[in-house]
């Protein structure tokens, strides 16, 4: 369905009010593409029908869920995960924040890395505006084709005494994560920008800010900086820029999007 610019802008305002995520500050082109996909996938032919959905809490949550860009593989950028695993060896009980959850591939990748680093006492906080996304983690099905990619990426983690089979079970439709891995994970069903500031040892926020406009991206980085203290690791997408300079946050491995807050001299 063709959506006029004014319709898109008005929808962004109403979605922001209904869902509590600042869609008005999403990159317009991204928001338009996402919205068009939602209209097509849900067979919505009138903007008014969309507003009716937004007024219903469960339907609004479904829209929030569909706005998320799902990861298409585990261990995306394997060298980043290898590097991160090394950095985590200095943090036996890390407090970790994933501000943006989509379909869980990123979260489960982290959980695997923690196992490989022999870290059993991590505390992980995950934010997601969609309840459906959080609940869906209990029953994520990994299609066999995707699992082939996951296995290839897993092999690039360069661990000889581990297998991806330790973390998934085979199902009739493909594979599923072993959900007992989620024991140390706390889920918070709200947009991360509405979260009270807390300090973390590791923040993983990859490839979310690319969907925001420059102003929101800058505010997000400032918000993340409030949760960063000495030796905190910040991990962003390999092609994302830090539009706001966080004092003493230094590149650890720019090619992998890894930064570490160094000692203030």
């Amino acid at each position, binding site marked *: 369905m063709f959506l006029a610019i004014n319709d898109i802008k008005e929808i962004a305002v109403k979605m922001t009010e209904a869902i509590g995520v600042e869609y008005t500050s999403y*990159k317009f082109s991204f928001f338009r*593409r996402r919205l068009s996909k939602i209209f097509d996938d849900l067979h919505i032919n009138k903007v008014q029908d969309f507003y009716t959905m937004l007024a219903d809490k469960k339907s609004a949550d479904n829209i929030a869920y569909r706005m998320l860009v799902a990861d298409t593989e585990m261990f995306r950028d394997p060298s980043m995960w290898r590097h991160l695993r090394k950095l985590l060896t200095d943090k036996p009980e890390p407090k970790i924040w994933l501000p943006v959850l989509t379909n869980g591939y990123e979260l489960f990748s982290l959980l695997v890395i923690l196992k490989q680093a022999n870290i059993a006492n991590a505390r992980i906080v995950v934010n997601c505006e969609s309840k459906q996304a959080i609940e869906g983690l209990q029953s994520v099905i990994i299609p066999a084709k995707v699992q082939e990619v996951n296995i290839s*990426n897993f092999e690039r983690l360069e661990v000889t005494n581990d297998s991806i089979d330790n973390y998934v079970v085979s199902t009739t439709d493909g594979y599923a994560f072993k959900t007992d891995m989620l024991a140390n994970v706390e889920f918070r069903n709200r947009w991360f920008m509405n979260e009270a500031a807390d300090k973390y040892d590791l923040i993983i926020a990859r490839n979310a800010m*690319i969907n925001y406009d420059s102003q929101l991206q800058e505010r997000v980085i400032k918000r993340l900086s409030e949760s960063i203290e000495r030796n905190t690791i910040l991990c962003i*997408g390999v092609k*994302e*820029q830090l539009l706001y300079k966080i004092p003493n946050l230094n590149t650890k491995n720019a*090619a992998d999007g890894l930064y570490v807050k160094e000692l203030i001299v």
Partner: protein
Amino acid sequence: MSDYKAVVIGGSAGSFSLMLKMLAGIKSDFKLPIILCMHRLKHVRSGIAESMQIKSKLPIIEPMDKQRIEPGAVYLAPANYHMFIELDGTVSLSTEEMNFFCRPSIDYTLSSCAAAYREKLVGIILTGANADGAKGLKDIADKKGYTIVQDPATAEVDTMPKSALAVMTPNEVLKPEGIIAFLNNL
């Protein structure tokens, strides 16, 4: 001085060696930005731009998100990201769903360039093994941009140029040498 503001090129199977040849042939004083979207292995992040840089007289850039497009440089879509060009001349990267099982998608890059540069764009489709890029090139033609398809007879894999020719009529069908000469005369 050319009336065009940018050149966008899409290619897949067989296009890497062809691009090396084309980049080697493009003059060092080429003034327009060249926006390049090639299907590539998603886990191989380095090597391609570096190889191109050896041959190219123009700087090869794998842009960051929100980086501005500048004249006289080649912008290569990064591995595992879609690359869109915004109306303000900046790059938008995205991890959205794949198109034709590909990310970056040639359609997405070409269509966004069509919207950003309209009739001041040259769009080129090279050799490749699927239909990605055909719709994007049609979008460029629909906006009155100048369109070129590599002569399928010279393509290592002719699916991509033939798919483009099936949905639109380009301004020219050229052999690689002809494409290089066209670009150098802009």
